[in-house]
């Protein structure tokens, strides 16, 4: 991993307002955590685990392209001390962050949410679908802007689960 790649990753973490991040490539593990002052502290280490076991968390080159905000480690990755869950759109429709224009958003970065709590509304065929959180945790990222169309399976929120 060279300096350019490291910079790219830091930018990505900043762009997506993640507070913690972990990536592994060619047996090298990079952990980034915000310290108390809010600054990022990158920590690099070598991994001894069999590389095959890490295939489940592919965070190689494609994920680093800014166009693909996929750089969230799957919660299932082994020995990860944080867990990020990604809420995806179950349908094609229009994404709304609040119950109506002018109302406060259901959830913002930093909001603590509970399982079953409404995160957003997706409108499809004039049916307003409330999307509930499947996790207890804290919103660390909102991927879509209010009023944007979303596709099936598109990422909506990242939640740091508790």
């Amino acid at each position: 991993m060279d300096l350019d790649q490291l910079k790219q990753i830091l930018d990505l973490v900043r762009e997506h307002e993640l507070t913690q991040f972990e990536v592994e490539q060619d047996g090298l593990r990079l952990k980034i955590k915000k310290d108390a002052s809010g600054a990022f502290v990158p920590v690099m280490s070598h991994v001894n685990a069999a590389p095959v076991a890490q295939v489940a968390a592919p965070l190689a080159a494609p994920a680093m392209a800014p166009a693909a905000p996929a750089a969230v480690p799957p919660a299932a990755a082994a020995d990860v001390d944080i867990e990020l869950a990604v809420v995806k759109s179950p349908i094609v429709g229009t994404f709304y962050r609040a119950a109506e224009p002018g109302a406060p958003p259901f959830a913002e970065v930093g909001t603590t949410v509970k399982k079953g709590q409404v995160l957003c509304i997706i409108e499809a065929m004039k049916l307003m679908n409330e999307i509930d959180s499947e996790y207890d945790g804290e919103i660390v990222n909102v991927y879509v802007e209010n009023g944007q169309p979303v596709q099936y399976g598109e990422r909506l929120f990242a939640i740091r689960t508790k």
Partner: protein
Amino acid sequence: MSDPLPTELRHAIEARRDRLGPLASRIVYFETTGSTNDVAASLASADRLEASPTDVEGLVVIADAQTAGRGRRGRTWFSPPGAGLYVSVVLRPGRARESVERAIALLTISAGVALAEAVERVTGLSPAIKWPNDLLVERRKLAGILAEGVASPGSGALHAVVLGFGLNVMSAAYPPELSTIVTSLDSELGRGVDRAEVCAEALASLAERYRDLLDARYDAILDAWRARAFGSRGAKVEWDTPAGVRTGVTEGVDAMGALLVRTGEGLERIVAGEVRWGLHAARY
């Protein structure tokens, strides 16, 4: 607290019992409530959390007046007493025999068709439908539908849908300054209309189209919809996107009810948001 169902409404519903199926097996009536959709949604949500839930399918909430009647995206639905129909029904399109996704997509389309059919059966007026489900007479809005999903706890799947509709029976149902864009049954007919009959027929027609939906008779629903949605082909439309207003010409709807619009860049598929029809579009 709910109120007793008015006698004439009870009779009108009972007279159609054989067409209602699971619909209106339970009716909650209010002289005044905030929003029938909110009441129905809270009853449906409370139900889904019960250890042995009662079946909310077909639950009907009716109000003579609403103090917080709602339309799409927080718009107010004017709901003074005695002038309109304010009804919400709890439906479960997830129970469709096949292609549940299509049943969910076509639910509000089915409801628009049913409401138009009910109006026609009781009054002889033949309302047009504006995609996906507003009822219009000579371009003016007669009725609107607002559907809200109730998610299953845990899975996030759709547990039920609260389908609410507001229909202007008398011109007192809307502020006079809206009379260029809104209309009512009595102003179209020039005579009074039996509100209980319209309400009961709306429920019976809705029950029949809901049955079509559960039995996966999707093409029959879409055919009936197309016969009333004159502006869904060859009409100029515009709609808002985050990147600005777009325009195009309608080319019908697809199997999922999405509106197809030809633009300079190709064929767009619209599933949400509000589409505005140009002034010279046929019949709108």
